[in-house]
């Protein structure tokens, strides 16, 4: 984090104008949204299901090494598609406008141990509203890590490179625990809260079903290939977990991304909210296939500005958004995946230690604006 506010040069009028220009970009996509977009998501869902079926079919013979490789690779990709381009985006309500009850945020369930309704609450309502606000957005380090100088150091943070690695490998469980706010709710008094217990039970049921499918039924169906199929589904889940963890780390942790004080969002206007999303997110550059496999979260900035626009439109929106960054002289944080992952990991290591120099706090944007 830089010690100066990178938006200090903007007047409040400019910020509101920026907000109006972003609204116009959004309106344009909504006016044009239609049959082609609907065909796109249906095609992706259909392809995902066929790939999963085929991969699981191949894995019935997983004791034969080429079948193991092919099936594991296919299943990994299918699981990534399910979570990223399909699940994440449907649960955001990006496809609700189609009014298809089978592809709707209120009815969709994903291949993930966190039940979709709990994830929607912690992700859509908390993270997307309070993006990068310290103390409000639990995505900032997931409550187990320190990812900004402004967050207080504690000796437990010494282990955060290890916590982060474990979290990457079992990311879906990390998310489920996070959606349950396990850290907070495991305190003696809260543990008995009936609402928490109900939600914990729902997670338990979901975990049981997922584990039964991937680690019992499917290996059993493989007969003599039981163990190799078990290894294959475990590997596919691992690949999916590490991949989505990496993509998501790139969204908010790389160097150059801003975090915000709780006070700075009081009385925030639409323009200021947009500005916070712009400064609090980072993109990943790459090929079409790469964007697809990240569920278009490689367009994290655009996704945070317009979380409910269909993901297939982020690429075209990005061109216009980037022009606005240039117009308003703001830094558009982006880079190839390896670079961004490295940058995020470096931060995890660096901030596991206390700040080297006494940290200069960034003045709140409000105060800067008043001063300007």
């Amino acid at each position, binding site marked *: 984090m830089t010690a100066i506010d990178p938006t200090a040069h903007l007047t409040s009028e400019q910020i509101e104008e920026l907000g109006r220009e972003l609204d116009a970009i959004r309106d344009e996509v909504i006016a044009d949204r239609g049959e082609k977009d609907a065909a796109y998501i249906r095609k992706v869902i259909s392809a995902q299901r066929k790939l999963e079926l085929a991969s699981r079919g191949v894995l019935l013979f997983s004791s034969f090494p080429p079948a193991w490789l092919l099936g594991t690779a296919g299943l990994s990709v299918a699981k990534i598609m399910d979570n990223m381009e399909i699940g994440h985006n449907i649960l955001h309500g990006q496809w*609700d*406008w189609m009014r298809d009850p089978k592809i709707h945020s209120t009815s969709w369930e994903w291949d993930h141990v966190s039940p979709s309704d709990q994830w929607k609450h912690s992700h859509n309502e908390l993270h997307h509203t309070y993006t990068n606000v310290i103390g409000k957005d639990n995505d900032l380090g997931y409550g187990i890590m320190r990812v900004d100088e402004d967050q207080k150091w504690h000796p437990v943070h010494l282990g955060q490179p290890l916590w982060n690695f474990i979290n990457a490998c079992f990311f879906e469980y990390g998310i489920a625990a996070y959606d349950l706010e396990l850290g907070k709710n495991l305190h003696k008094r809260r543990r008995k809260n009936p609402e928490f217990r109900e939600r914990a039970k729902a997670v338990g049921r979901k975990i049981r079903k997922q584990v039964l499918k991937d680690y019992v039924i499917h290996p059993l169906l493989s007969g003599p290939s039981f163990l190799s199929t078990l290894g294959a589904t475990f590997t596919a889940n691992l690949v999916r977990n590490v991949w989505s963890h990496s993509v998501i780390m790139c969204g908010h942790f790389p160097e150059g991304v801003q975090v915000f004080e709780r006070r700075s969002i009081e009385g925030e206007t639409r323009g200021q909210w947009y500005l916070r999303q712009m400064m609090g997110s980072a993109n990943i550059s790459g090929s079409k296939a790469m964007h697809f496999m990240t569920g278009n979260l490689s367009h994290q900035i655009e996704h945070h500005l317009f979380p409910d626009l269909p993901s297939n439109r982020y690429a075209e929106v990005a061109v216009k958004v980037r022009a606005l960054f240039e117009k308003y002289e703001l830094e558009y944080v982006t880079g190839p995946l390896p670079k961004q992952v490295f940058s995020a990991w470096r931060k995890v290591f660096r901030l596991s230690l206390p700040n080297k120099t006494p940290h200069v706090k960034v003045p709140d944007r409000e105060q800067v604006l008043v001063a300007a």
Partner: protein
Amino acid sequence: MVTTPLLPSDYLDLFSPLRAGADLRGRIEAVRPETGDAATIVIRPGRAWRGHTAGQYVRIGVDVDGVRLWRAYSLTSPTDRRDGRVTITVKAIPDGKVSNHLVRRAKPGTVIQLDQPTGDFVLPRAKPAKVLYLTAGSGITPVMGMLRDTEFDDVVMVHCAPRPQDVIFRSELHDLVADKKLRLTEVHTDTDGMLDIARIGALVPDWAERETWACGPAGLLDAAEEHWSEHGVQERLHTERFRPGVVVTGDGGEVTFSATGKTVDADGATPLLDVGEEAGVLLPSGCRMGICFGCVTPLKAGAVRDLRTGEITEAEPGVLIQTCVSAAAGPCDIER
């Protein structure tokens, strides 16, 4: 368990959407123009289709510009069609999203959503001696389903349309006339003026003795109901309406869809179904005119007004409202 979190049917639907056990769907097999703005859609219904009775309608869900929209259309095919196909005949109405899509843009091969056929505008089991069909515009469609299905000894039809070329099924009707199976009077309202129901006796002297099925615009049906009542033969008249008669509107209010977590301002004249759909809320819907009860939804709080009667319904546990004919009457909460 094998397919969690999906169901096996989610996978089977990829390959066989019309199979037995699937949600009821149909595949459009042909679109045949009838007049300049009407077309017949030939549909192969899924295996779950239970068959219809002549005169009934079916609700279909069609994706128009990617958005699923539901409408009700009368079935125009006879009930015993050998190939198992059914037809609906659709007239494109101005600004009608679904009707224009079906008449002008629908493609064979498209899968659509279907409901089981329903409606009580049907022929009785016992054949009446004399029948009168009184129709106007696309109101001919359910009656065509009846004409094609059941032959009577003495059938008279009075049909209104602006011009001869606007008469749907005209050549088929004239064939029936030539075969002496039907006596037909066409009223071309562009040249003849509107049909005056009070003078129906001039066209059909024995109208009061005839079992009558009438379908058309509200004005025609209202007049017919009045005329038949005046002569004390209202039990002989069966009517079918395509649109609700909105009579009362009032102040609107803030509508909350609590399950989806959306809140929008609504006026007192827009049905809550339209309000919710505009806001992206998934609401059940049906005939959109208050008869099929496909849209009933719990009213959790506040009050709504029935647009047909002006009657106010207030929230109580267990109160269900028809969102297609109810508008906000102050702030209210719809459980969707």
